[in-house]
């Protein structure tokens, strides 16, 4: 009996893990399969569960053209570049702005410090989705429609980065900075050469989280980009599909979906350790 229990103790978690992996991987696997058949086969409902011969041609066609018989879109190449710019600018810009703020809050004393800090913190209460149309008005007033500035600046407003870095900066021993000052280093030099290198793991974690956040944005780019040339890939693919009818160039749509997943997935896989650490240590 005990032996039996030990056996099931090994076996049962395995069954769950395999089922879970199937649930996660099945839709993704079928996206690859869909990207490897021609649209006629898919459109007649004849697509098998195994990969077909056209994967590379479809991926290339999506990358360079992306328009087919029933799908009109700009090339993935351009949407991919837009997404990359948005994600990078949001991640780097937000990290830069919030690390400067955190630096001022932790290591300086100045009048109205708390007032300023709280007015930045309060942004946590109201996500962009809730002030979306007024933000859109502001962006049009500032002439930011269809621009990278319009796509990115409003997404940088949030206090999460500031909070995380404030916590990290606080754990830096002050003696380190005092010693550097004695050696003649000014505050900016201390920032670049001591403080930022010390919190590198936190910066890596923030970078993954913010890059994914920027890449996966939906509602804001939907409003702020009216020109197809400025579309991000997540918006582009939804516009491409329109209504999910049988007679769409599914081969192109699924190839674009694969493209849309590539970069964020690679980043998450490569930086998995920092992502997990960053999420679980900062968000609580």
């Amino acid at each position, binding site marked *: 009996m005990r032996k039996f229990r030990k056996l099931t103790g090994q076996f049962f978690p*395995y069954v*769950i*893990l395999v089922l*879970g*992996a199937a649930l*996660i991987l099945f*839709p993704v696997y*079928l996206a690859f399969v*869909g990207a490897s058949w021609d649209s006629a086969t*898919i*459109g*007649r409902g004849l*697509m098998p569960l195994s990969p077909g011969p056209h994967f590379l041609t479809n991926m290339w066609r999506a990358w360079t053209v992306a328009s087919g018989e029933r799908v009109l879109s700009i090339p993935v190449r351009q949407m991919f570049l837009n997404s990359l710019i948005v994600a990078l600018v949001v991640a780097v810009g937000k990290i830069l*702005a*919030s690390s*400067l*703020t955190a630096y*001022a*809050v932790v*290591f*300086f*004393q100045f009048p109205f*410090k708390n007032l*300023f800090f709280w007015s*930045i913190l309060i942004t946590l*209460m109201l996500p962009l*989705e*809730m*002030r*979306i*149309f007024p*933000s859109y*008005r*502001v962006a049009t007033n*500032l002439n930011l429609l269809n621009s990278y500035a319009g796509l990115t*600046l*409003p997404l940088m*407003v949030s206090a999460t980065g500031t909070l995380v870095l404030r916590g990290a900066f606080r754990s830096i021993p002050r003696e380190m900075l*005092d010693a550097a*000052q004695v050696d003649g280093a000014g*505050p900016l030099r*201390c920032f670049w050469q001591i403080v930022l290198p010390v919190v590198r793991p936190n910066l890596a974690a923030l970078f993954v989280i913010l890059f*994914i956040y920027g*890449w*996966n944005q*939906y*509602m804001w780019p*939907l409003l702020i980009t009216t020109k197809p040339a400025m579309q991000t890939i997540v918006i582009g693919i939804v516009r491409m*599909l329109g209504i*999910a009818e*049988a007679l769409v160039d599914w081969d192109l749509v699924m190839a674009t*979906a694969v493209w849309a997943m590539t970069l*964020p997935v690679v980043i998450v*896989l490569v930086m*998995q350790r920092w*992502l*997990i650490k960053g*999420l*679980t240590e900062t968000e*609580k």
Partner: protein
Amino acid sequence: MKAAPVFRNRLLPYLLILPQLALTGVFFFWPAAMALYQSMLKADPFGLRSRFVGLANFIRLFHDPYYLGSVRLSFVFAVLISVTAMAIALLLAVAANKHVRGAKVFRTIFVWPYAVAPAVSAILWAFLFQPEIGVVGRALKGVGVTWNPYLNSLQAQFLVILIAAWKQLSYNFIFFLAGLQSIPQSLVEAAAVDGASPRHTFWRIVFPLLSPTTFFLTIMNVNYSFFETFGVIDALTQGGPGKATETLVYRAYVDGRVNLNIGLSAAQSVVLLAIVVLITAFQFKYVERRVHYA
């Protein structure tokens, strides 16, 4: 205790906070104030002029049966999405925390949907569940189910919940696994020595110790179901069929973008904010009491 400042510059700290403060001012305080003000405006049909109408937009909302339907739908979605995503993620985390061969590979598999945008996951599942050409859609037809989420409300709602929960699995998994790993192994072993069954150990020892994680995740999941489902719904159903998947956020978007009724849309943002604040406060007041912080 307040630590003494390290640096004594007077002007520099203001320059340091200036970028973020400017961003917050322009893209947060300005639009937030505008939202509050607009929620009390009514524009003429041509959108040329608007006049102050006080709380009329709010009164109109709460007399609109479709709006009340959206409120109910958002809550039902929030409960079903959160419960599904958290229950499955917990099960996976418990299994992945066991010392079985290949646990690391499985962990990686469960983490990576974190990278997939909600709208893109909607496209993946739409391909599977497409009634005529989708693999699952065809299979359902094969066994005699009249499957068409573009016509059948219940099926559309089911699909939105499925996709939204699927996408959220990895987030919940990451937190549950971290929570499980922080539970001292000695506690679990002591229970086993005392003769407690694995199930007993889990519900009496592990699950209560996980409660801070569960509590945190509940708040995050409810927020996620309110806001992030927008991408799924817009990619898949556009709120339809009829208004079957028109959540609060989607309705606010439709009123602002399609119907160009900025005042009504702004009023909905204010209501939404109130709902989110109330839910969070409720959770802190009544649920957090049951949480055991170690």
